[in-house]
């Protein structure tokens, strides 16, 4: 057995969670070697599109208990409360850390960090950098990471599988997108921080890179995917493209009007109005559409989001990107015109089964950020909780991974060489060498996306979910017989899209099976045929395990309740 060079920690994904993990790892152990592997240059990661801000308890009269309660209630009592407790205590330190690293948080006149109201939060606690919070956080942390020579990047490297040997994760196999050469990267610990999978849907705020790669990698390696039925639909997407109109528009005082000129939120969340949680506002909008009270346009029904009463000065100071997006993509000036919006797929609450330190059940494998499920978001994430989630649990995973690495021997070469040969053969036989085929990858992907929009949306039914469950194997067969136009190795994005589509189909399997089995309505999972929450049967996390050629095997794990007993979720 020959040892091969191995990193202490290998991180897949260079967004906020991955970068935070990398810096955490070298901060507690400056001798640690860290590989940061991403299919894009890190500053392209989808963190960049986050707009509204990051929630944290910064000062009186806010309290940890209040943030924790809002999060648990927002989660419809599916969040693990011990995890929430740690989160609310660490989030403020992470916000201050980002400040020390140079994040241009918006400020009060006295120079302290400003906060704004956000949906489902009982007090003002969302810190922000105008309405480009994710952009500034990502560039700040990426640029900060450049000062650590221990963090070695492999930009535009696409990971296709995990190296699992002796029951532990010892690295990844993938290919350099420029050369197409398949190679291993060995490591004592691996952290998955690959983000979400919103591109499974047609109408989504997510960028094209959000294809659930890390979730699929873990799933294929035998790790359960947790709570995959819980998909967040954001109430305010641009009707044509799905570009996100931030919740901060409502946080700053924007109104939602139906076609009858009514602030309809009053009938659904009277105490919160426009600042109800996302799941409830999205359902309210769809319900209004079905009652005939929406506007109609070429992209279907929509509502008006109105900030005209805020005035140009506030809009330019707090929401300049929204004005820019309106002018650019809708030809409207939000200072003078209401913004057309409709609910849009936005965020995956589910993810790789991981504990409070990001540890998965497999030794050496960790997960953080949107691709993970550490039990924090439950059935509905509150807006502005995901950026601090990336920081708190990214850092936790980085620290845990480096500690684990210290106790591990180096990976050995022999089995890895064989795995690389197998992976090389699989990619060639399945895609690059295929000469005959039928549908293009893009067409199959569009059919998946449209079917998911239709059947796994804001409201679900047994019938629609069964239809989707039947459609998935057919889509997979079509992928097996897909037409491949590009047989080159150099920067073959058709190959990347095919492999991403495999990941999306794996994720979709778990989402549909988990949604079918959960015969209740909780948080973002709304079943028309089971409209009530059922704590007797379903106060539990769903875990979906892969069974090749068959629907996933499901099991349930009780929610950890520490202080807040489940009660009716009204606002």
């Amino acid at each position: 057995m020959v040892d091969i060079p191995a990193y202490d920690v290998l991180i897949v994904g260079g967004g906020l969670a991955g970068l935070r993990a990398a810096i955490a790892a070298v901060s507690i152990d400056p001798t640690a070697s860290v590989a940061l592997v991403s299919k894009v240059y890190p500053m392209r990661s989808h963190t960049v599109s986050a707009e509204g801000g990051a929630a944290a308890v910064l000062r009186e009269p806010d309290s940890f208990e209040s943030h924790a309660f809002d999060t648990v209630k927002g989660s419809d009592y599916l969040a693990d409360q011990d995890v929430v407790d740690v989160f609310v205590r660490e989030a403020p330190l992470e916000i201050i850390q980002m400040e020390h690293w140079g994040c241009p948080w918006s400020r009060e006149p006295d120079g302290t960090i400003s906060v704004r109201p956000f949906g489902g939060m009982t007090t003002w606690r969302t810190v922000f950098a105008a309405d480009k919070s994710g952009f500034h956080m990502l560039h700040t942390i990426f640029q900060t990471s450049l000062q650590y020579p221990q963090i070695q990047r492999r930009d535009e490297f696409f990971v296709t599988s995990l190296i699992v040997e002796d029951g532990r994760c010892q690295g990844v196999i993938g290919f350099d997108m420029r050369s197409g050469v398949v190679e291993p990267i060995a490591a004592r610990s691996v952290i998955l921080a690959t983000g979400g999978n919103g591109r499974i849907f047609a109408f989504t705020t997510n960028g094209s890179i959000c294809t659930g790669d890390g979730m699929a990698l873990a799933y294929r390696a035998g790790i359960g995917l947790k709570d995959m039925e819980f998909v967040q639909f954001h109430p305010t997407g641009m009707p044509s493209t799905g570009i996100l109109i931030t919740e901060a528009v409502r946080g700053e005082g924007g109104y939602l009007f139906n076609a009858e000129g009514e602030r309809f939120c009053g009938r659904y969340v009277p105490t919160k109005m426009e600042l109800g949680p996302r799941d409830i506002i999205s359902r309210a909008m769809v319900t209004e559409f079905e009652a005939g009270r929406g506007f109609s346009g070429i992209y279907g029904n929509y509502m008006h989001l109105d900030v005209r009463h805020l005035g140009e000065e506030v809009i330019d100071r707090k929401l300049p990107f929204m004005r820019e997006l309106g002018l650019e993509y809708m030809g409207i000036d939000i200072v003078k015109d209401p913004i057309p919006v409709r609910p849009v797929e936005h965020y995956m609450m589910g993810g790789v089964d991981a504990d409070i330190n990001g540890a998965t059940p497999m030794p050496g494998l960790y997960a953080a950020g949107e691709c993970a499920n550490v039990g924090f978001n439950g059935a509905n994430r509150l807006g502005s909780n995901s950026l601090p989630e990336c920081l708190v649990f990214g850092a936790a995973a980085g620290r845990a991974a480096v500690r684990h690495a210290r106790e591990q021997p180096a990976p050995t070469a022999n089995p890895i060489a064989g795995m690389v040969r197998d992976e090389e053969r699989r990619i060639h036989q399945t895609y690059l060498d295929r000469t005959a085929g039928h549908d293009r990858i893009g067409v199959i992907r569009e059919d998946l996306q449209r079917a998911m929009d239709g059947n796994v949306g804001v409201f679900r039914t047994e019938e629609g979910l069964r239809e989707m469950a039947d459609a998935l194997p057919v889509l997979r067969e079509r992928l097996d017989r897909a037409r491949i136009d590009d047989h080159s190795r150099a920067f073959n994005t058709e190959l990347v899209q095919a492999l991403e589509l495999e990941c999306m189909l794996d994720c979709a399997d778990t989402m549909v099976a988990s949604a079918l089995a959960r015969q209740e309505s909780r948080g973002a999972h709304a079943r028309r045929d089971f409209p009530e929450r059922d704590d007797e049967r379903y106060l539990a996390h769903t875990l979906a395990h892969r069974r090749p050629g068959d629907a996933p095997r499901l099991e349930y794990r009780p929610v950890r309740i520490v202080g807040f007993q489940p009660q009716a979720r009204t606002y």
Partner: protein
Amino acid sequence: MTAKTITLSVSRYDPERDEKPSLQSYEVPYRDDMVVLDALNWIKAHADGSVNFRWSCRMGICGSCGMNVNGEPKLGCSAFLRDYLPGPVVVEPLNNFPVLRDLIIDMDSFMEKLRWVKPWIIRQETALGGGENRQTTAQIDQFRQFSMCINCMLCYSACPVIAIEPEFVGPAAIALARRYDLDSRDQAGQERLRTLTGNDAIWDCSFIGECSAVCPKDVDPAKAIQQTKFESTMGMLLPWGGKK
């Protein structure tokens, strides 16, 4: 009635097969609200899966889809087809970078330049428990525009200096250096300035201003370069230096 279409001429290059790039034309369905990126995505999904380009957010913030549209550097996601009627629309990779494939450039050189200007806060570390540094909106306004750079490389494509001196650190990296030099929290003193006044840096700039003209985010790198030149000159003339 036939549906409206528009022709895209796309630069194709495969290092495994082609000596040099050539244009390939595609007929694409046209809608008024379509951008060049939409047209490329339509081609890849429906006409030719082998066309390669980078993209992600399609909202002008991730910086992936810089490309030349009819010879001008643009973000593909914000170049509307309606501005190029009746076509054809010529789509090529950005200038001044090696081409890896079709519209995809190799921008590793920028990543090295970025690191070289130390784009991070240089400051004696303080405990997090001490809370945030105070910073007023007026202080943020000093550097705000330079912090808006999305690293899309349009300015490098437009820069006449990069075209003849590839080692020139370039507009975006200098703007980001300036972003930190102007940040009230930064204590780098002359550290970045010394780097920027050395070889391949600010004195190479001939102040054409193309970088600022093409920036899709209204960053003004030319101003950053001028400010740095001024500060450096003051530093040479005045005994106490030009830096804050």
